[in-house]
């Protein structure tokens, strides 16, 4: 029972009823920006409303219909299962205290959520280090919990500290949330990273959906070049990306 919507992009405003609600389609998983009213649970006429202005998106994953609203914002609010780049701000006997967005509530990263965790084996991170992790658990009135492994398999799966090796230079860029999601998930249409590699810019990259992009290259000028390109490409149309890349590569590398 998959949903077949036309390829139209529907702008929706806060408080509007979703399109699927009008067509009586069943949604199994609710994504960001959607609110389920529960005032009339008894009569099964609870409704799906939008809480943010954006574009409706529908997808079918397996047998589940997924719906979310694509909107842009600057401040990140944790959502379960998101890949984020967190900054360690403090450490206690059981967990690290991390920050995933400036001026916001802190989140916890317990030592038990690392691969091969035992009581004695604890990771040695310093304050200010960047950690690539996933949001594991959200609880009301309590800080969110992060994890540094795939909790189903117990593997490391690329999570962990983001650190430049000796002789390499890293930087972290703050940008809007929609741009980060575009870079991370839309790799078929949004070819910015591929274009950078085509221009002989080799770099490591980690993208957190909390608006942070970590890059690492072998020289400082190259890092600055990639940083500037990613920063400049955020605010312009996709067609202008080639020109920007060319301009910065000329300015910094040759």
């Amino acid at each position, binding site marked *: 029972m998959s949903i077949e919507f036309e390829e139209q992009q529907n702008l929706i405003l806060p408080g509007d009823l979703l399109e699927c609600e009008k067509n009586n389609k069943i949604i199994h998983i609710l994504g960001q920006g959607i609110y389920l009213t529960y005032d009339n649970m008894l009569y099964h006429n609870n409704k799906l409303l939008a809480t943010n202005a954006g574009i409706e998106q529908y997808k079918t994953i397996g047998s589940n219909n997924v719906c979310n609203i694509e909107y842009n914002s600057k401040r990140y609010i944790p959502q379960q299962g998101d890949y984020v780049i967190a900054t360690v701000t403090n450490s206690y006997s059981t967990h690290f205290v991390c920050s995933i967005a400036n001026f916001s509530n802190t989140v916890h990263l317990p030592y038990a959520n690392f691969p091969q965790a035992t009581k004695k084996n604890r990771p040695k991170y310093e304050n200010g280090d960047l950690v690539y992790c996933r949001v594991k658990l959200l609880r009301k009135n309590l800080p969110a919990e992060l994890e540094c492994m795939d909790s189903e398999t117990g593997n490391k799966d690329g999570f962990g500290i983001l650190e430049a090796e000796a002789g390499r230079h*890293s*930087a*972290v860029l703050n940008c809007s949330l929609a741009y980060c999601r575009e870079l991370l998930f839309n790799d078929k249409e949004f070819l910015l990273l591929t274009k950078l590699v085509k221009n002989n810019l080799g770099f490591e990259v980690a993208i957190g959906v909390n608006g942070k992009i970590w890059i690492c290259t072998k020289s400082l000028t190259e890092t600055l070049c990639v940083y500037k390109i990613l920063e400049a490409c955020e605010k312009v149309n996709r067609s202008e990306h080639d020109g920007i890349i060319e301009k910065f590569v000329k300015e910094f590398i040759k």
Partner: protein
Amino acid sequence: MAKELELNNTEKKFILSLLAQNQRLDGRKSLIETRNLDIKINPDAYGDVYVSLLTPEGSVSTRVHCKITADIVKPKDKRPFEGSFYVNCEINGLTGLQFENYSKPNSMSSEGYYTRFLESMILRSNALDLEQLCIIAGEKVWDIRLDLHVLEYDGGFLECASIACLTSLLHFKRPYVEVQNEKIHKVYTDLDERDGVNLGVLHIPIAVKFNIFQQLPTEELIKQSNNTNPGKELVAIDCTIKEEMLSNGEVLVALNKNREIVQLDKPGGVPLQSYKLLELANMALPMVENITSKILKAIEIDESKRNEYAYLLSAENDRYDG
């Protein structure tokens, strides 16, 4: 809820290693390069100025609004011939969320410190002639109040604010007052009826802030107590907020283009050798000259726009020297 702006180690290391290579994160190519200055004067009022610092890419990083209001008050008993001048500035959560926890003073949000610096810079150097503000000695004087609003904040507050203060002081016109028999006969508040009077600005002091980045750890500096290795520290002008957070000390200098140091302050931080201070003041001089000419040009352009038809009313005729 609102917490500090947090810098992570990667960012710190990146910014410091860029500074060591004479580069800045916002695209400037040198440590002593300032951001572009943009002065906008409200065409409908006098002394209403917007000053912003633009990054090389053209986006606004710091923006300040400055407005002057004048009032007639009774002078202080000790100084019956002098008017009064007051700078009011509050940085609130609108500027940036790091200023929301105003109860906790820190180096970044010490707005009181900076506004006192500006006020004493203007008053103690006699940049604003207070005696011209006297209407009737001991009875009525003008009270000039300057309101500063910080609309966007990315470092460079002191430069931006001092430029805005001086531009609006130069531009402001107080109403003309008619005095008869030692009593105020009429105040011409409508400037169309009778033109206002400019304030007496005697010179133009501009404040510049230097941030010092020390490249050796503090323990080593203490060991070499005689400081035999000068030039180990980096000095940057017009720092962004992130650079300010990483700096080990700051020096505030207010200068005018007549090569007079009006005010000098060094609130803590790493030790500096005395000759370095003179070096810094010399470094600031071309910058101050540049800014002064920009301020005067902005006022001149505004003046010519206002008096578009002045030449029609002028009795001056073209001289013919045959």
